């Protein structure tokens, strides 16, 4: 396994918010989704997902509820709140600007 590139600080929130934009998911599904959709490039340590999710609960971006998973187990499902959706829009724009800026620097350099 190639060492995964370090995440930019704060990007984990963006990734989680983006992942949850399509609907509610439990923690494991979020981790899997991030891994799969980045073609396994972004390998975050699964455990670090939960502190991030809890900080987002505190900020009120996501809400959580217990339910039954597809494999019939008790699981905690996370869902975006309206506040979280706003945050996603904000962060997406910020991120795009950042990436553009970096690309511009890369091109001119």
């Amino acid at each position, binding site marked *: 396994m190639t060492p995964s590139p370090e995440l930019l600080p704060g990007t984990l929130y963006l990734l989680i918010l983006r992942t949850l934009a399509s609907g509610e998911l439990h923690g494991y599904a979020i981790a899997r989704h991030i891994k799969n959709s980045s073609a396994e490039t972004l390998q975050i*340590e699964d*455990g670090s997902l*939960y502190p991030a999710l*809890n900080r987002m609960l*505190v900020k*009120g971006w996501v809400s959580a509820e217990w339910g039954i*998973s597809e494999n019939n187990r008790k*699981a*905690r499902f996370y869902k975006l709140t309206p506040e979280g959706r706003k945050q996603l829009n904000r962060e997406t724009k910020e991120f795009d600007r950042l990436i553009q800026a970096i690309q511009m620097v890369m091109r001119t350099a």
Partner: protein
Amino acid sequence: MQWVKEFWRRVRHIGNRSKFHDELDDEILFHITTRTDELEHTGLSRREAIAQARREFGSTARMQEDTHEAWQFHWIEDLWSDLRYGLRSFRRDKAFTAAAILSLALGIGINTTIFSLTMEFLFSKPSARNPERLVDVRIGGNSHAAIREFRFVRDAHDFEGLAGRHEEAVANWRYGTETYRVFSVRVTDNYFDVTGVPIAMGRPIQHGEDNTVVLTDHFWHNRLGADPQVLGRPLFFDGKPYTVVGVLPHDHRTLLGYGYSPDVYLPVGPHDEKQVVALVARLPEGMTRQVALERVKAICRQLDKTYPQEDPRSVDNSAVISLSGFDRFENEGALPIALFFGMLLVVVGLVLLIACANVASLLLARASSRRQEIAVRLAIGASRSRVIRQLLAESLLLATLGTLAGLAVNLLLTSATNRIQFPLPIPVQLMIQPDWRLLAYSAAVALLTALVSGLMPALKATRSNVSSTMKQGEHQVREGRWTLRNALVTGQLAVSILLLATGFLFLRNLMKATSMNPGFDVQHTAWAQMRLVPERYPKQESVRPIVSAAINQLRAIPGVEAASVVATVPLNDNYHIGAPVRADSSQQSIAAQWNYNRVSADYFRTMDIPILAGRAFSPTDDGNAPPVVIMNENFARLLFGNANPVGHTISYLKGKPMTIVGLARNSKYFTLGEENKLALYLPYFQNNDTRADLSFLVRAERPEAVVKEVTTVLEKLDSSASVETKLMRNALTFALLPSRMGGVLLGSIGFLGLALASIGLYGVLAYAVSRRTREIGLRVALGADRAAVLGMVARQSLSLVVIAIAVGLGIAFFATKPLAMFLVPDLSPRDPVSFLAVIGVLLLVALAATLGPALRALRIDPMEALRYE
């Protein structure tokens, strides 16, 4: 308001902590199990799958901790560790901690006590149901109304209820063979119904009752031995039996307030037409005092039609006054009381400021000895704000400990105050109880103290240059003369001079007031109060024989030089009249306000008030003789200038002219502080207004020797009367009370302030000198004259004190000016004696604070001094 919601989510989390941990465990389990299942599908063995899933998940312990932390209040955790650190360092530095906490305990203790006292005097509420809706109704501006007026207003049903009461009514209580004078409140039968005064045992006086009595707790305890069978027991007041139906709770506050604590509540009899009562109304929910006042005015006009008076009632003087809280001061002349307490709060605030300055300079001294520690922390990367926070947390801890100790001081002081038996003619008992306001106030004080005493030292301590401080020995370099600490101590001294000057002023005031000559002889006079049962003397004339007999028999007691009866005892009762008067047959009237008194023939001899012209009254000045008066010098000057008034006449607008037969020297009439008051004396027996309360004055070379005999003589005249005899010099307490209170309170506060400032001064000077130990040792080693070194050190300390004295006296000179209103007239607030005393005391303290450490430094072996530190 994002952070508010966040805050609440965190708070809610605290309650769910154990559930949270369980759920987090469940979540981890689910994650790992699901991943294991998935890996197992790819062909791994169960055990390998578990290991792989665990590895991918990472450390569960760290994850749990991080997750938990997401929910925590960081600053609380930080604060907690700061406090623990502070507590540890306090334990190392016991002397410092004790000095700081003691300063704060005294400062805060006295502050909260004065606060409690102020709350009691200014804001206490009477014991009643919804006291804020109870008002005092003054028809035509009169404090009391006749019973028929009361009935008229009650039956108008303008308010939710209207009752009447006569506070400070005296009754004779016959118990066994003795008659005691007790203080009763006479109330109308609906009084308890309207006011809703809570009862501890039994029931209140009810409608239609005129022979029941409600006892106060202290009467029940002190006079009846807390008899548990007291309900239903008959007691005799003013010769009539009353059945005890109820006992009031021990914390009962009357509608009058100010700690007035009567003995019993008695109903006004149904045929008691002469009784006057103060009206108390319960306003309907939502009715303002303005609306109520309009109704009272309307009633007043109706009253004038139903019961016309010679002079119509002055409708516009009618008033509706709150009975509870601060509102009652609105219309009253109680502004000086409020101002006095305001001043007290300012003064104790200054004491607290001094205490804070003490703590601040202690913290400063401590911070400079901790400079290295702080510099190290800053150097290894602690942010300045983090270090300041640590220092502030320590001062917060100090302030909290100090406040707790202060609250203990407060409880001690207030319970002592509550037990004080005030030497007053009416029974007064304070009921200061700690309440939430006190707690809120102390918390605020503690916070403020922490900020004031902690912020400056913290800022200063962290400002210093890291690299220079890291190098030891740098601080031996002499500091600039005006360090923060010097400024602090100067300010502290200046404030304490202000306090001390105020304290001395009030003490001087007390001395002056006590030794002040009221214009009559208090040393050789005694005062007997005799109260007759009114029912026994239905007519005015029936009192006269007993009064004449009393005077004759008192005069016959061996040792008594003169005896007289008097309507108003000076400096105890107040009776003044304001009206236009006319001198001789002049058409022009002069508005005057004078003290009015009726006295019998020997009054002036008894009191040793000189008659400057004309004659004193004679026994023949009675109802059959032409009306005569005696006036004092002030009155004569107003009417006749410097001419002799004797032989002239004075008359009210409609009255007959009265001949002025004598001119009496000015004296004090109601307060010692009054000046230039007018007074008019009338012969006691020339006037029909005789009351059941009689006051006799006797003159004797040794009045204490005749007190007993006076009482016996009067008791023999009427065994149902209550008699109380006291020395006139002990009866001035009422007049002296303001001076005593001011003297005791401000004197002790001033000395407390001085004590605190002295501790601070001593600490700072001693610290400064001890830091120069090496320098002093060096000078001595190099051959400097010891006396010269001592002089140098003393000069530098004293210069600090002299500056402080100059600043403090400058402030005191102006700040004490408004205090004149509390002082006796011939004492100026800029009394030089007070100021000189203050300067002397402070110089002594400064000298002691300098000489001690300086001498110690001089005595040190130079070699040792050089090795010092």
